[in-house]
């Protein structure tokens, strides 16, 4: 058995191989700008290669309390973490955990997040890792700080620490009744103590602040417009930048005429390597200058959606062996040969865009040779590395600050806007802001990988699965191994050549693998003539997954009503990254025009001890709504190095009218460590909908998105009918 390291998968998926820019290194200017003597040679090793080791390369996490939290003389607690808030609510949930362990009121805590000068190094905010890793890290530091405060009081009073208690930001002597606040004890001094990992943490059953529905900590600032997102940052004398984008991917510049733009007053034009951009005192002038640049490009012939899946299979053969099957037991061919019922099916998912409502944005400023960049990213330290490499500067000369941003969903691991703004700021000597347009975000960011998935399965007549084989081409290995108990099984991810720049997306390939697997489970359930839930339970041992299936089914009254041609019920589930999910959906089909509407979703969720049930519900419901897009209508259309639908008018995302009635059932396992919940809630919806469509119509939809693209222009919609061997009957999606 060769179980993958999920961290390695995540890192592999977020590594975007192509560098956005190579600036020509003008050595003389470089020395002039930064003074002689300090040439630090940066090797071009991708950071994840260092990070993929368990030691995180040179990045040892600090062990002293002072690196993680400080207590001011007035008792205010500041917590430092390199994790970033992107809407997943960790600014609140991490503060709850610190308040709990430190025994201070929640309101006394300020989270200082994602600032590379002030917070400990962090790999990035992805992979649902904040809750399982940063949570315990901060809890450990807070619990150690509490012990330290008790010891400080004991020394002052010459008392036995065991007779003192810490509560409500004070240490109190149980016999003497004397007490000192934390602020009085620290007097604002740093808490200098090295902490070992075995510090006793408060069990979830005793939680008073963690585990409760504390409202989002700075919620008020979002309704008043006070919160400054990365694109809202303003610096004195700031200029606005615009980047000239090539006419297509992999284009080469044939000619460039900048004379007209250079003559415009107050405009700076930069052409450095493959970077062509302008800056001006305001956005209008920058836009005019951009349109005054005359460039001609050579865009090579490139693949389109058509033939995509066949090409994945083809190109996977030329990829270096990726370690073989992920998960093997028994002999699939032998078991398959004797199975009473065998099924072989193909499933596909398209490229989709994250389309965070706030596009990439950055403000960059150079002062005394030091670069400071405010930007929206899930990896401030990763962006710092990118800036160091792009400008050949040492770590002390770059600071990246990440204000809580307009989300990312896995789509903001990179620092393009930061590099662009920094290059223009270097040329103008003033702070420069870059905010990508929606079209830029749809074109020059990166996409969730498309993928082809082939599943073969064999079962006995009594519904026992005996063989399972799962191959994923290009989309990724996340959640590729079946959670069902099958004696003979094999799962394998096959990397392939991607015509588009691709990277991580909420839940990675767990969405694609689970769509294929749970659709296939449904097909097999029908083949063995069993109820889909009963068939799953028959082949499922994992008690946590069983529990969510049961909880969702109970709430939904699964099996109480039979599907009709107008109304279908579907169920699906799965687990990844410590989150367990089961989803029941009810869809309605309009008999006249075959339009599908998702009416009702019940989703059961379990991810260990719940840190904040309100935030968790919000995440799980949001994942369902976002999942509707990929399931039903989101699909990037491309041809010859161009994106054909780079606007919300052409690329449909879920709206109010698409949101069904949603009920969330949370299972709180206080006996289990808390896992992250920002991602895996998205993996149940698509297969449950597909299964409901089948229940109603007898039509099996094996390609995501499942409904025809009723908004996309006609030509692009027809291109989507790719010839990858599976047929997709046309059903339209309608809003509820």
């Amino acid at each position, binding site marked *: 058995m060769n179980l993958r390291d999920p961290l390695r998968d995540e890192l592999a998926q977020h590594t975007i191989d192509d560098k956005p820019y190579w600036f020509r290194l003008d050595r003389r200017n470089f020395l002039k700008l930064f003074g002689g003597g300090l040439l630090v040679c940066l090797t071009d090793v991708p950071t994840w290669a260092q990070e993929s080791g368990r030691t995180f390369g040179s990045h040892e996490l600090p062990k002293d309390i002072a690196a993680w939290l400080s207590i001011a003389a007035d008792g205010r607690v500041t917590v430092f973490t390199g994790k970033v808030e*992107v*809407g*997943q*609510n960790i600014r609140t949930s991490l503060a709850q955990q610190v308040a709990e362990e430190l025994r201070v009121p929640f309101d006394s805590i300020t989270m200082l997040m994602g600032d590379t000068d002030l917070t400990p190094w962090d790999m990035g905010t992805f992979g649902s890792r904040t809750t399982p890793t940063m949570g315990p890290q901060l809890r450990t530091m807070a619990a150690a700080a509490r012990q330290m405060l008790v010891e400080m009081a004991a020394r002052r009073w010459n008392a036995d620490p065991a007779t003192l208690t810490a509560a409500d930001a004070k240490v109190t002597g149980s016999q003497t009744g004397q007490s000192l606040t934390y602020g009085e004890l620290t007097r604002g001094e740093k808490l200098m103590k090295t902490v070992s990992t075995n510090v006793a943490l408060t069990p979830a059953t005793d939680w008073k602040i963690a585990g409760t529905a504390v*409202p*989002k900590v700075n*919620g*008020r*600032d*979002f*309704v*008043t*417009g*006070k*919160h*400054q*997102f990365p*694109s*809202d940052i*303003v610096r004195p004398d700031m200029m*606005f930048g615009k980047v000239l984008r090539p006419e297509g991917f992999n284009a080469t510049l044939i000619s460039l005429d900048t004379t007209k733009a250079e003559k415009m007053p107050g405009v700076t034009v930069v052409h450095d390597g493959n970077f062509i951009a302008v800056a001006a005192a*305001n*956005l*209008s002038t920058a836009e005019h200058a951009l349109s005054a640049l005359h460039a001609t490009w050579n865009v090579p012939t490139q693949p389109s959606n058509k033939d995509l899946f066949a090409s994945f299979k083809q190109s996977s053969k030329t990829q270096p062996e990726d370690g073989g099957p992920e998960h093997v037991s028994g002999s699939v061919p032998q078991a398959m040969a004797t199975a009473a019922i065998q099924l072989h099916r193909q499933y596909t998912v398209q490229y989709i865009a994250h*389309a*965070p*409502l*706030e*596009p990439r944005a950055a403000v960059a400023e150079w002062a005394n040779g030091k670069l400071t960049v405010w930007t929206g990213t899930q990896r401030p330290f990763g962006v710092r590395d990118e800036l160091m490499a792009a400008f050949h500067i040492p770590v002390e000369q770059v600071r990246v600050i990440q204000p*809580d*941003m*307009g*989300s990312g*969903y896995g789509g903001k691991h990179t620092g393009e806007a930061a590099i662009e703004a920094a290059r223009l700021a270097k040329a103008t000597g003033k702070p420069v802001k870059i*905010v990508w*347009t*929606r079209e830029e975000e749809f074109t020059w960011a990166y996409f969730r990988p498309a993928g082809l998935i082939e599943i073969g399965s064999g079962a006995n007549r009594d519904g026992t699965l005996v063989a399972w084989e799962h191959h994923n081409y290009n989309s990724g290995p996340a959640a590729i191994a079946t959670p069902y108990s099958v004696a003979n099984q094999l799962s394998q991810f096959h990397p392939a050549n991607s015509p588009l720049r691709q990277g991580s997306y909420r839940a990675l390939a767990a969405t694609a693998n689970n769509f294929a697997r749970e659709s296939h489970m449904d097909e097999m359930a029908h083949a063995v003539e069993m109820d889909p839930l009963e068939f799953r339970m028959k082949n499922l041992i994992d008690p946590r997954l069983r529990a969510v299936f049961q909880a969702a089914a109970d709430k939904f009254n699964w099996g109480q009503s039979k599907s009709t041609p107008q109304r279908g019920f579907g169920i699906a589930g799965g687990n990844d990254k410590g989150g367990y999910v089961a989803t029941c959906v009810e869809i309605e089909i309009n008999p006249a025009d075959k339009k599908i509407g998702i009416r009702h979703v019940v989703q059961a969720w379990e991810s260990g001890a719940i840190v904040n049930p*309100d*935030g968790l519900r*919000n*995440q799980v*419901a*949001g*994942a*369902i*709504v*976002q999942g509707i897009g990929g399931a039903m209508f989101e699909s990037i259309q491309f041809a010859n190095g161009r994106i054909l639908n780079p*606007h*919300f*008018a052409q690329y449909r*995302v*879920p*709206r*109010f*009218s698409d*949101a069904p009635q*949603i009920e969330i059932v949370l299972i709180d396992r206080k006996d289990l460590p808390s896992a992250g919940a920002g991602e895996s809630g998205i993996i149940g919806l698509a297969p449950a909908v597909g299964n409901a469509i089948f229940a109603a119509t007898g039509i099996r939809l094996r390609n995501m998105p499942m409904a025809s693209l009723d908004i996309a222009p006609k030509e692009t919609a027809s291109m989507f009918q790719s010839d990858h061997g599976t047929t997709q009957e046309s059903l339209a999606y309608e*809003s509820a």
Partner: protein
Amino acid sequence: MSDFVLKVNGAHLHVSAPAEESLLSVLRDRLNLTGTKYGCGEGQCAACTVLLDGEPARSCLTPVSAAAKANITTVEGLEQDAKLSPVQQAFVDEGAFQCGYCTSGMVLCATALLRETPHPTQEQIVTYMDGNLCRCGTYPRIVAAVQRASQSPAKAGGQ
């Protein structure tokens, strides 16, 4: 460049900008009123919603010259004497946001809806707000927040 005196949140603000520059850009980039958001610049997301004489408008598609005579309300203008408007308060109470980037546009649209229709049905809310995108998928809570605000004893307009 032309000179304008804009009436924003009750204040008269002097600004010079090309007449065709979007109100969004003028508010954000020239007046530093960054509560109004850019989401698409194409009229498709409503993150940039402002109220012009109480009516919701996509500021990304509104040339500043077209807004010069109107009373412009941005999200910064809803709070009165440090008290949130009923819609703002309802969004906080329902936790009707995740990243919060869509929130100012949502709050302004809901404010306009409740002025027109003080007690909207769920269907009316969905229809009225369908142009407002929330990529975090917080729609059900936003609908609940609008319903909550519609039941608030205070007037929903925030004026």
